[in-house]
């Protein structure tokens, strides 16, 4: 191709080059201030909601699988025995419809972010714990692994969303969140099983919370007065 042709082609394709050069998912380090001009806020929110839905579904499957295999029927009803309370119970998260109706968008988003960030580490622990089982099926392990990975990307998405929607600055990962989760180094078998079960069921619940909050948020974007 002659030089002239090249120049013309490059001029024609310039917009494409522009778009290609910027990644769509905007998954950069949390320290960067880069915005993602290529994706709209609505689409981003939709994508985040899809993520949350998927995470919830997979976590539900994992929990029921675990329950079937390892938890005798009698113990299934007593999920919140003392000592196995959900790790996120201390978080200031709205827990009733009326409460949720009262809080603002910002607070919804922040609640979601808090939840997500507080679960990243425990899921890693859960993964290592499950690997120690002799009879844990591969599907269960794969699911939990998938969930922990997806959670990280969900976090990134929420961070970007916060930037977009709230025009806030970066939120650094809260190291203080790590304090929520403490575990013994060498738990007993039964304790370990119960702990894992509690983790799974609590996570399942929290995943549902995330999903619900995000959906509410979406509803508020479109129709502020009729949503909850």
């Amino acid at each position: 191709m002659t030089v002239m042709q090249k120049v013309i082609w490059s001029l024609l394709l310039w917009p494409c080059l522009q778009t290609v050069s910027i990644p769509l998912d905007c998954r950069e380090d949390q320290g960067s201030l880069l915005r993602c001009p290529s994706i709209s806020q609505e689409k981003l929110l939709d994508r985040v909601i899809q993520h949350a839905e998927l995470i919830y579904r997979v976590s539900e499957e994992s929990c029921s699988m675990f329950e079937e295999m390892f938890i005798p029927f009698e113990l299934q009803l007593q999920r919140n025995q003392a000592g196995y309370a959900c790790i996120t119970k201390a978080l200031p998260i709205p827990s009733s419809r009326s409460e949720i109706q009262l809080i603002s968008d910002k607070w919804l988003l922040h609640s979601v972010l808090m939840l997500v960030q507080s679960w990243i580490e425990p899921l890693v622990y859960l993964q290592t714990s499950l690997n120690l089982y002799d009879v844990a099926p591969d599907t269960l392990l794969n699911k939990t692994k998938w969930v922990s990975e997806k959670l990280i990307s969900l976090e990134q998405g929420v961070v970007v969303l916060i930037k977009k929607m709230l025009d806030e600055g970066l939120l650094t990962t809260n190291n203080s969140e790590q304090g929520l989760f403490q575990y013994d180094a060498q738990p007993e078998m039964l304790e370990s099983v119960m702990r894992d079960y509690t983790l799974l069921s609590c996570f399942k619940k929290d995943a549902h919370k995330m999903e619900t909050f995000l959906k509410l948020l979406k509803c508020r974007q479109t129709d502020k007065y009729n949503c909850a």
Partner: protein
Amino acid sequence: MMKNVMEVLFLLMLLFTVHAKEKSYNPPEKPALTRCRSPEKETFTCWWEPGSDGGLPTTYALYYRKENSETVYECPDYHTAGENSCFFNKNDTSIWVNYNISVVAANALGRAFSDPVDIDVVYIVKPNPPEKLKVAVMEDKGWPFLRVSWEPPHKADTRSGWITLIYELRVRLEEEDDWEMHLAGQQKMFNIFSLRSGGKYLVEVRCKPDHGFWSEWSSTSYINVPDYFPREKSMWILVAAFSAFIFLILTWLLHMNTHRLKHCILPPVPGPKIKGFDKQLLKNGKSDEFFSALVVPNFPEASPSKYEDMLVVEFFEVKEQELMLEESNDLLDGGLKYESSRSDSDSGRGSCDSHTLLLDKCREAKEERQTNRDGSLIEKQIRQKDRKEEAISPDISSGRVKTWPSLYSPLPQYGSNPLDKQSSLEMAKQHSLSISSFLTQPGTKDALGLSYMDFCLSNKQNHVHPQTQVQTRSNVNISNIGHKHAPAGLHSPTTQYVEVQRVNKEDMVLLQPVLSRCGLIEDCPHLPKGEDYSKVKGVDYDNRLLLQREGTGEDMCSGMDQETNGERGNCYTTSTVSIMQKPTACIYTVMPIQEGMALTLNGYVDTANMGNLPSC
């Protein structure tokens, strides 16, 4: 007396106690929480089952405790949801929070605590059934289908995403019992296909949150599906009409080709095509009459010609060896001998005698002869006393005088009777041509030309192959018969087999050299390929068969006018040696038979000696 009083008192006390026991009061039995349900994830209700109340009025109280606190609350509303129930309104309902609920039954004598139950409102959602179910019949390219639409229960807040519902519907015909289930996902509309025409359908729908319980089925909707049968019928009518049309066409085609099919399936038996042959006479059994009828005036020719002998000689020569093999009673007529020659069924005989051809071919030929001899027996019988020849070619029998009859085959007569042979020749000539250009002059060059045509009928035909080898080899016997002019130069009989290609409208016989035989053999040195056939131009007044050669190939100067002037022949051919030549039409007249002349008696020109001849 005291004893009596004591006894009476004792009895009375017993009576009292008995009486008292019938009406004993007990503390209540333990109640049991049966279920807790939330219709929209915003409120929920719990029901319990009371035990026996112990005869005393018993009160029930429900207490609950949330997961994170130790505070015990009592049920806020015992009445909204009915008896033995507790209703938690919006303000009291926390989602994602575990409730520890228990019921206490109390009466004057005591209390009973039920087993506690842990619930999370999120997991006990059972929505109300969907509402406003609508069913309509719609058409898609002529085929109807049902369009079902509905709305979520009004209490469930699906719009804001608080609850996500999935739907399921079921359909059945009125007279049937089994339902057909369809999962519709999150959509609120569904199409049902594959309906039965003219039926009445029942449709119901229900819903479920992503984690929770299925709702009850909604109220039934009825719908009538109209008839749409005519569509199917018209298609069948079209199919029937089309097949009838095809059938008619096939019948017509069959009818048009009956003739051909008949020939294909049942090839006709060749009948006698002998002039004067009368089936009836034969049937009558009077052979005399029959044979006399066969006699044709002017036959045989009285005037002999010197060429006859020559002709005869040739014949003899060719088939002389075969004579031995023939039946002894074969000497009936020369005319009949062709049968045997016919039975030889191959022109290979001649070629076998030919020096130029391979021996293998001879063997083949001999075998063929053997096989075909029997076939010709019957025919022989018929012709025993006669010199007529029958058309061998089935084509003739079929009425199409397309090929020359194998009359020519009889030419190689090797009977001991030259005269017979002559006559047979004449006969052959006579009968060969059903056309006017029949050669009447016996033994004329014309006859030669005609008679020496070979047949190379395909092997497909069961008939004998009347391939008579045209042999142009001189033989000692020839001289015995007293013929001079034995064609000497026939050592290398390039035997050419001619087959009658066809007889065209102008009464022209188109000859074509038989190549099949040669085609089988690798080296047929003297048989040029791609030969042309000589075309019979006509018969002139002298009873000469005029042939004209077309195209390349051997020239066949069969128009032999040897009668009068041997010098007259100006049979010229193009150089015959070359295989491929430009097609030229050469007209031959008689070529005088000369010593060394390559012209064979049968009218073929021996290519080997064509040098003498002028070329066209």
